[in-house]
């Protein structure tokens, strides 16, 4: 088989890497946003009564 097929192989691995990488990134960012929101909520709950 000729060299031209390497383009397809590369594209397949690239697509896979992009999809898996994007998914991982999305899950990680989601985790960061959630823990941050939970932390903010917890800290505001403690001082919540004092805030005017």
């Amino acid at each position, binding site marked *: 088989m000729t060299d031209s097929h390497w383009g397809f192989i590369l594209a397949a691995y690239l697509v896979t890497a992009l999809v898996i990488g994007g998914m991982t990134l999305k899950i990680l960012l989601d985790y960061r946003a959630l823990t941050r929101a939970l932390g903010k909520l917890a800290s505001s709950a403690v001082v*919540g009564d004092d805030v005017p």
Partner: protein
Amino acid sequence: MPNIANPTIFLSFVRRLLPWSAALAIILLTLGLYLTFFVAPPDYQQGETVKIMYLHVPAAWLSLFIYIVMTVAALGTLVWRHPLADAGQKAAAPLGAAFTFICLATGSLWGKPMWGTWWVWDARLTSVLVLFLIYLALIALWQAIEEPGRAARAAAIMTLVGAVNLPIIKFSVDWWNTLHQPASVFRIGGPAIAISMLLPLIVMAIAATFLFLTLHMMAIRNEILRRRLRRLTILAAEQSDAPAYIAPEPAR
């Protein structure tokens, strides 16, 4: 064994397990990629293009495996009404769609040099496409229903209905395919696949499975946190005596 069905215990369990499963996935993936690119021989018919198989087949395996995981979680939701099963279901659906998409995309990129066309309405590819649609529909259902418990039960029923239907869909697509195009061009090795090609394939499949398990655990953790956040926000809104909350409700 600790009761990992308790969400809090599950979270600490995930925290301990996650580095190990992530490391295992990365090591296996590296090994699999090494075997694929430096050890596995080119196919005598397909040449180097066969390297796409090491992505395509594990993705195809995961697309089914994730549906099985979702079906088990759906049973957990309906039979034991367990929040962890809800989270397991919800976290699995986007992952299933992603791996099914990889299966379709690599199949298409494999098909172009092999068949000379990007897509063939081959029985196997078409069934995977239908599976992809079902994943997307389930994700849409999850997004449409706001209350997490209710969404979980609706999605669980749809998942089970889909699980019953998938074999029927597979059967009918096969039937349809033989009706329209008698000879299938596509064969991967058949039973007599060489060991030098089988070994990388198995390593890649196991690596992909661990990759999924790692991502699934992370996504389940997110769902547990999301539910906790939701509950706390509602609680905070109920407790606070902010006048905004008592303001007249908008007309329905």
